[in-house]
């Protein structure tokens, strides 16, 4: 019999070496990011345009989403269907999407088809045709998607959280997909206007990751993107004013609900903030890991939920900090109370040294596990571009995480958790949860049908 009573000691550490990333600024203005990696003969190519929802003008809310969809509608050289065939005959599928900070165009294919891949990527980005019929179809799909989200509790709760956390004039208070009144007026010309303004060489990064010769990529990208130019134009500064000036319960009635979707949070912080690393650890301790305080309490102790998670959405501007979970209707108020109690306890009694160490090891350790595929690595490199981080960022990241102290975590907890200004958003059956929520007395209750 062997001794099983204690966990075994680790073996010899083999230090993880992050894939090298190279960044070049091409004469055209394009930023090129490459990383040679991967055992399989695959390559992922991505264009990152500074054309996310944050780059929209007031009257354009929703146009970035529509532009991303409409890139799929064909180019000046081929129809949408022909474009799909061209890619999919090779097993490659084009995906386009937006965040607040960027618009992304990506596909993965065989690495020895790099030239064709870059040629197609350039064609999609530079020469979209935006045929009216396709743009209008995608606009109708976008409107239908808004309708779908209005009856899907998780998406509805996410949208409500953004709405109630931010003030009416804030950039991040509405969904990425836009608002109906504006989107229904968009046509091909509107898309083309946005494209012309935001799709310039200076606003574009090209990322190439996979089994390719990084040294040879520059010339091939230059060749593919040709005479493109246009200066970098920074997007407008995001507005991030908060809505509630005191903790408020926002109850959104969904009569058919058998569970309440909860979103509890407030305005967080931008990506470029001196407290970024301590905040990552704080978040892991709150509800960013399975063994976080809230998950252990709400799930493992009380059985209120299948799981609870928290997140600081780090964007160019201050994105929201949100705790999210779904709980049975009859324990909704108790779950809200327990969440507040846990946060209060954390602020009053503090976190332990062991929690800080464990959170740091968790965050630093799991990063390599999330960089195994060309697409995962591409996603990380896209962040380097968006947030203007150095190419040796990944290796310094681990040092930065491990340098965070217990005092740092407690300081940022006190500075950046705002218990007296929480937006507590409940999407659930008002008839069964409203009285209990009122009885909590955590703040005024605002009800929305």
């Amino acid at each position, binding site marked *: 019999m062997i001794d099983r009573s204690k966990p075994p000691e680790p073996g010899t550490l083999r230090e993880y070496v992050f894939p090298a990333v190279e960044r070049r600024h091409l004469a055209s203005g394009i930023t090129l990011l490459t990383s040679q990696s991967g055992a399989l003969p695959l390559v992922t190519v991505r264009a990152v345009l500074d054309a996310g929802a944050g780059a929209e003008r007031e009257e354009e809310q929703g146009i970035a989403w529509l532009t991303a969809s409409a890139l799929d509608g064909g180019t000046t050289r081929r129809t*949408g269907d022909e474009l799909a065939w061209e890619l999919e005959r090779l*097993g490659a599928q084009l995906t386009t999407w937006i965040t607040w900070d960027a618009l992304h165009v990506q596909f993965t294919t065989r690495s020895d088809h790099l030239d064709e891949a870059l040629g197609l990527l350039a064609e999609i980005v530079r020469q979209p045709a935006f045929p009216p019929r396709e743009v209008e179809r995608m606009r109708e799909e976008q409107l*239908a998607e808004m309708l779908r989200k209005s009856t899907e509790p998780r998406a509805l709760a996410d949208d409500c959280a953004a709405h109630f956390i931010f003030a009416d004039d804030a950039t991040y208070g509405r969904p990425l997909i836009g608002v109906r009144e504006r989107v229904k007026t968009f046509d091909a010309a509107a898309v083309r206007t946005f494209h012309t303004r935001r799709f310039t060489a200076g606003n574009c990064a090209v990322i190439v990751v996979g089994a390719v010769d990084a040294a040879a990529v520059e010339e091939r990208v230059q060749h593919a993107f040709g005479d493109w130019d246009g200066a970098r134009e920074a997007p407008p500064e995001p507005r991030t004013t908060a809505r509630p000036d005191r903790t408020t319960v926002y109850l959104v009635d969904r009569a058919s609900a058998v569970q309440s979707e909860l979103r509890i949070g407030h305005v967080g912080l931008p990506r470029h903030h001196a407290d970024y690393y301590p905040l990552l650890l704080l978040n892991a301790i709150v509800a960013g890991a399975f063994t976080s305080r809230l998950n252990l309490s709400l799930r493992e102790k009380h059985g209120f939920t299948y799981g609870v998670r928290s997140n600081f959405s780090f964007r160019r501007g201050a994105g929201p900090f949100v705790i999210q979970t779904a709980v049975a209707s009859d324990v909704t108020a108790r779950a809200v109370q327990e969440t507040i109690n846990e946060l209060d306890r954390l602020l009053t009694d503090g976190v332990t040294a062991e929690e800080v160490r464990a959170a740091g090891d968790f965050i630093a350790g*799991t990063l390599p596990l999330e960089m195994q595929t060309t697409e995962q690595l591409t996603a990380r490199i896209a962040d380097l571009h968006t947030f203007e981080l150095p190419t040796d960022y990944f290796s310094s990241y681990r040092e930065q995480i491990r340098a965070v102290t217990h005092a740092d975590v407690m300081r940022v907890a006190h500075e950046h958790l705002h218990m007296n200004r929480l937006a507590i958003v409940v999407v659930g059956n008002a008839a069964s949860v409203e009285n209990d929520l009122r009885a909590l007395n955590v703040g005024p209750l605002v009800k929305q049908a």
Partner: protein
Amino acid sequence: MDTCKSISVIERRIDIQFERYSLPNGLRVILSRDPSAPVVGVNLWYNVGSRNERPGRTGFAHLFEHMMFQGSANVPEMAHFSLIEHVGGSLNGSTWLDRTNYYETLPAHYLELGLWLESDRLGWLLPAMTQQKLDNQRDVVKNERRWRVDNQPYGDWDERLQEMMYPEDHPYHHSVIGSMEDLDAASLEDVERFFRTYYAPNNAVLSIVGDFDDANARALVDKYFGEIPHGPDVPPIPGRTKIPARLDGEVRATVEQDISLARVYQAYRTPAYGSDDFYAALVAAAVLANGRAALLYRTLVRDRQLAQDVVAYTFPIVVGASMMVVWATARPSAQIEKVEQALTEQVQSLASVNDEDVERAIAMIVAQQLSSLQTVDERADQLSMYTTIFDDPGRINTELRRVRAVRTDDVRSFAREYLRTDNRAVLSYVPKAGS
């Protein structure tokens, strides 16, 4: 570009090396070394799923999976999660119709930790089981059901289709998540019985993929798993497991829900995973909805603008017969009957599908499979799967040949034989009046 040739060039280069052996207690072990990054995936498949549940205990295999994370004789409550997360690893488990899997991805020097944790719960789970833990996880799972099924638009589609597609005494008649009533009925005695019946080394496969020393890994597997005794023979799957690969008539249902967009599902009964015809079904589904040049996308979404989205896939399940599921979400302006009719027309048009569509579908499947092999966790899971289902881990290298062997004629005959209105269930979701 010559697609088929170019895809096959990559495919020939898939050559995942592995060693396979068994312990005297019946545990099958697959080791696949890849030192390219200091990470390791540990993956266990147990050959038990919701298909093995007895009447009145639907959902139990999954509830049991939750109990496997509640500690064991030497692993304190919650330590399974904390020990792995705190060394920078990730972990989870999942239950399906045919199997239950448990896995962790770890920094390579923590391989032994993973083996200690997995062996302790396989060998010594029961001493750690308590009524309080069971009651807690029952509540967690009931909330999982609410989250996935009861509070989610279309959330019960698979539960309903399974009921429509399989006879009441077939093990796929009920869903993995099970009913609230049956979850309430689960007892500690059930936990003990289930554990003694199905959780034995002879009913499991262990795969380790990543950066490890071969001799060391073998020694560690031996050390931690070697002394767990061989279990009794696993009882046969309950119920009527042999059913024809054809239904005898169409089954229909319509559900009113609090939704904005109507959706129609069609499920066609097909031969089980592993049979030759199954690969034709796989390709047929990819012709229909894998990609933007896929048949359903270009007809229902792009051209006729009837549908908001289209999906098609074939369940890789093995008991008796499988099913291919196709669905389309209707645009607000489209009548659901029209969408269904268009869906049926396109599905049936596969009886005369052309080479180009089939080649594109195969290219998509091959590329997606290749891409998935990039992570140690996915390779470990596939090695466990192929060993559990076919007793052949080498399928990780050869399975794509079966896909590539599918000819246009195979898809046509598959469509003529199986994609018929008398061999399907049709399930429509429509917005509740007034919602």
